[in-house]
C-alpha cells in the first residue's frame, strides 16, 4: 500500500522525517527490550517509544492533518496525554509485581541453598 497524503513539499518533508525518526526511536526502544539483560533493565526500554517516538509521530500526524484540513488539528495531544498518564501505571504495577516474584524466588533459592553468590540482592 504505497501511498501518501497530498501534502505540500515542506510539510511532506517534515512529516516524513518525523515519522521515520519516531519509528526509529521506537524500534530502538524495542530492540532494548530484546537486548537488555534483566527485567528491570528491559522495563526502561519501551519508554523510548512512549515518549520521543510517540511524540515525533504525533507531531507528524498533527501537522499532516492540520495541513490537509487547513485548520489546526490538536487532538493528537489526547493520545500523548493518555499514554503518558497510563504507561507509568502499568510499569509501576508490573515492576512491583516482578520485584515480589523475584524476591519470592530468591527466598526459595536461599531456603534450598541453590542461590549463587554473584546474584544481586533485591530490595526487601
Amino acid at each position, binding site marked *: 500500500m504505497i501511498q501518501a497524503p497530498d501534502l505540500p513539499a515542506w510539510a511532506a518533508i517534515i512529516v516524513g522525517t518525523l515519522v521515520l525518526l519516531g519509528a526509529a*526511536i521506537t524500534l530502538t526502544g524495542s530492540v532494548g527490550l530484546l*537486548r537488555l539483560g534483566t527485567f528491570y*533493565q528491559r522495563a*526502561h526500554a519501551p*519508554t523510548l517509544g512512549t515518549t520521543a517516538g510517540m511524540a515525533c509521530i504525533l507531531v507528524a500526524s498533527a501537522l499532516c492533518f492540520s495541513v490537509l484540513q487547513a485548520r489546526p488539528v*490538536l487532538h493528537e495531544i489526547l493520545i500523548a496525554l493518555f499514554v503518558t498518564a497510563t504507561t*507509568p501505571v502499568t510499569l509501576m504495577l508490573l515492576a512491583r509485581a516482578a*520485584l515480589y516474584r523475584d524476591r519470592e524466588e530468591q527466598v526459595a533459592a536461599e531456603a534450598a541453598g541453590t542461590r549463587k553468590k554473584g546474584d544481586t540482592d533485591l530490595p526487601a
Partner: protein
Amino acid sequence: MSRRLPHPWLIAALVLLWLLFNQSLSPGHLLIGTLVALIAAKGLSALRPLPLRIRLSSAIPRLAVIVLVDIVRSNLAVARIVLFQTTRPRASGFINLPLDMRNRYGLAMLAIIITATPGTLWMRYDPAQRSVLIHVLDLIDEDALITLIKNRYERLLMDIFE
C-alpha cells in the same frame, strides 16, 4: 470538593476533552460537552477522590520544560545504551529516594515523570517510610540522582500541589 458539585476545574477539563474529541468549538458541542462532563464528573465524585488543589504558578511551565528536556536527554542516553553498549555489566540498580511530598496527586505526578523519563523506573512507594524505590538503568552517582530528583521535580511539584 463536595459530592454534589464536582470540581469546576474538572468539569472544564472534561468539556475541553469533549471538544478535543469532537474537534469542534460549536456552541452545540459546548452544550452537550457540558452535559457529558457533568455526568462524568458525577461519576468521579461518586468514587470520592482525594481533594485536589492546584496552585497556579510559574512552577507549572517550569516543570513542564524541565521534564521535556530531561525526557529528550534521557531518550538519547538510553538509546545509546541500547544500541552501542554491548558489554555487560551495566551499572543499573535500585535507589531509595526519601520524599518530603505527601500529596498523592503530587506523588502521582512524580511517578509519571520518573517513569516516563527513560532510564528511571518508579517501583514502590512506602507511605510509612515516605520513600520510593526507583530502578535506574544507568546508575552512576546515586546521591546526585537523588538530589536531582528532589530539586528538579519534587520541589516544583510541592509548589503546585501543596
